């Protein structure tokens, strides 16, 4: 494929857009209305309460394996995904619970997946790191650092191939930018002008290794210059700022088939996974305390207070509501059966071909 013309082609209507199930939640329309802020606040609170209960369930042994919490980074997933249309695509790494919820996968099916139960969004086969949902075009949770970035490029290729106007939003951590897969993927996306938004969640640490100890370039967004790709740095604790940056990138992708690299500067308030101390080894308590002053929920709260949109009673009601949703998800997951043993050998192969046009093969055409 020759390097694409950078002038904007006429956007064509996605032939499959109408087939996509409508999202359960209403998506906010504009960055500056109070309903939007309220909706994003609720979204972030849901993630926060969900992850707090996830940590408890892990401690109780109800969740096993590796488990990576999103606490502290909620504004990134909530703000970015709020920009998308239902027929757009989302793909991410293994720290995927918050993004899955923001995309509209039900808390019940996410929690059931974490519990390894049949009603999980991946039927108990994927676990915490591999949340998938075809109904919301959530293309996974992927466990190999940077491994899913070329896949996002491929989704962008498919969109362009079909003449659609969807966008693929790809999340990954800052440690992934030192991996060859990142460079190979961004080079092709820029070369071929594909509608992909690459969003780096720079939470400062790749597991326990600080950015400065791993990357020769500390401003991650500058990496995009290697590919002549538009780029931007944004405050990841400010959900509105994230939303606005992603809105610009999505517009470039949808209208001009131009990819963007967005560096979102954030911080995780918990350990890398469930096994490391929150602070004390690779980062200090003082540093953690400093960053926690910019809790994304508190940042949005301050913005709402400034506008006179905050009331303790209203917020308490929302918190009660999301806690009840999470409680319901826990109970649902707890009661959901383990996968039957027959499931062990299922879903390794499909027995369809392009001639049979049934099952997942047919569903693949969207």
């Amino acid at each position, binding site marked *: 494929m020759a390097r694409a013309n950078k002038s904007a082609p006429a956007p064509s209507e996605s032939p499959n857009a109408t087939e996509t199930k409508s999202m359960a939640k209403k998506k906010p329309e504009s960055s500056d209305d109070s309903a939007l802020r309220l909706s994003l606040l609720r979204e972030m609170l849901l993630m926060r309460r969900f992850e707090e209960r996830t940590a408890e369930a892990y401690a109780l042994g109800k969740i096993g394996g590796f488990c990576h919490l999103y606490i502290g980074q909620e504004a990134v997933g909530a703000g970015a995904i709020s920009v998308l249309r239902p027929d757009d695509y989302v793909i991410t790494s293994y720290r995927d619970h918050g993004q899955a919820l923001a995309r509209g996968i039900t808390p019940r099916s996410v929690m059931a997946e974490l519990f390894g139960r049949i009603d999980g969004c*991946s039927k108990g086969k994927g676990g915490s790191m591999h949340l*998938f949902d075809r109904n919301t075009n959530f293309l996974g949770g992927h466990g190999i650092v940077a491994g899913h970035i070329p896949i996002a490029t*491929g*989704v962008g290729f498919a969109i362009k*191939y079909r003449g659609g106007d969807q966008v693929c939003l790809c999340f990954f951590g800052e440690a992934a930018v030192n991996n060859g897969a990142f460079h190979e993927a961004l080079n092709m996306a820029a070369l071929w002008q594909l509608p992909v938004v690459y969003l780096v969640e720079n939470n400062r640490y790749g597991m326990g290794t600080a950015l400065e100890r791993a990357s020769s370039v500390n401003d991650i967004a500058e990496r995009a210059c290697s590919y002549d790709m538009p780029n931007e740095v944004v405050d990841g604790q400010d959900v509105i700022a994230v939303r606005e940056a992603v809105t610009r990138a999505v517009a470039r992708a949808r209208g001009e088939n131009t990819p963007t690299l967005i560096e979102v500067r954030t911080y995780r308030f918990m350990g890398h996974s469930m096994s490391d101390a929150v602070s004390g080894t690779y980062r200090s308590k003082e540093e953690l305390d400093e960053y926690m002053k910019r809790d994304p929920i508190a940042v949005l709260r301050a913005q709402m207070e400034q506008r006179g949109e905050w009331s303790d009673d209203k917020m308490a009601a929302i918190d009660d509501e999301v806690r009840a949703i999470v409680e319901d998800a826990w109970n649902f997951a707890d009661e959901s059966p383990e996968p039957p043993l027959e499931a062990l050998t299922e*879903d390794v192969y499909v027995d369809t071909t392009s001639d049979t046009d049934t099952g997942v093969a047919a569903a693949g055409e969207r």
Partner: protein
Amino acid sequence: MAIITYRDALNQALREEMQRDDRVFIMGEEVAVYQGAYKVSKGLLQEFGEMRVVDTPITELGFAGVGVGAAMVGLRPIIEFMTWNFALLALDQVVNAAAKMLSMSGGQFNIPIVFRGPNGAALQLSAQHSQSWESWLAHIPGLKVVAPGTPYDAKGLLKSAIRDDNPVMFLEGEMLYNIKGEVPEGEYTIPLGKAQVKREGDHVTIISYGKMINVANQAADILAKDGIRAEVIDLLTLRPIDTETIIASVKKTNRAVVVEEGWEICGMGAQIVDYVQRDCFDDLDAPVLRVHQVDVPMPYAKNLERAAKPDAQKTVAAVRQVLYLD
């Protein structure tokens, strides 16, 4: 029936399947403007255009991943590796993404993709360009692995591979592209997962696949001059493997030799011997022997390379040994 090369048989399969289904595209190094490093994709750019015949940078991991992503959302990519030696750089996408997506998504996302290219040694390409990876690939649940050795099989199997809704690894060979054989004009496909008895016999079973099926046939010709009737089984698909055809033949001949291009340790032959010992233990009149590459990185020098490769003479010697003739 037309006599055409293995290369042209593959080219016909690609062209026919791209005409048949506009979700099918081919992507890889030099597949478009250069017309294919081995000319397998010759003429496709002119017929289908640059969106469906896509030259990539030299970025195997990257474009393998692009294929997986495109397949995930409904396209049917054919990813050409200039050789499978270079595909090592892409194995994360093959193994961790293509092979596992269906399972780890609980059956939601299948990956209808073909990864194809020449596998194994050619002539004097030395160590890094002369490797046979079929046992690595066949080890992975979620992948299908196909290795045709004739033009007829190459065309029919490639068409089936492109239509299959699973990831299919399609192993060709530089030394196969120029071989000629009969290929019918009309539409046909060959099912994946079925072996063929290429030659009937009752003294010994020679089990092989891919490029080595031609070695097996040569050996059978030589053996026939001494009155030894070898049955030659072409596996065609290495995963899922057709054990029934193997077992039925060994139960008839009571002796078997496996010919494979790769190294001995954990090679395909080891797996085949396991199937045979499980199901034919009481039928065997001799231990099953294997013919394979000598356990060294492939040397450059012509004489050393020849000594390292499996060939008809080594196969004949192994057959004579299981027949207790030598």
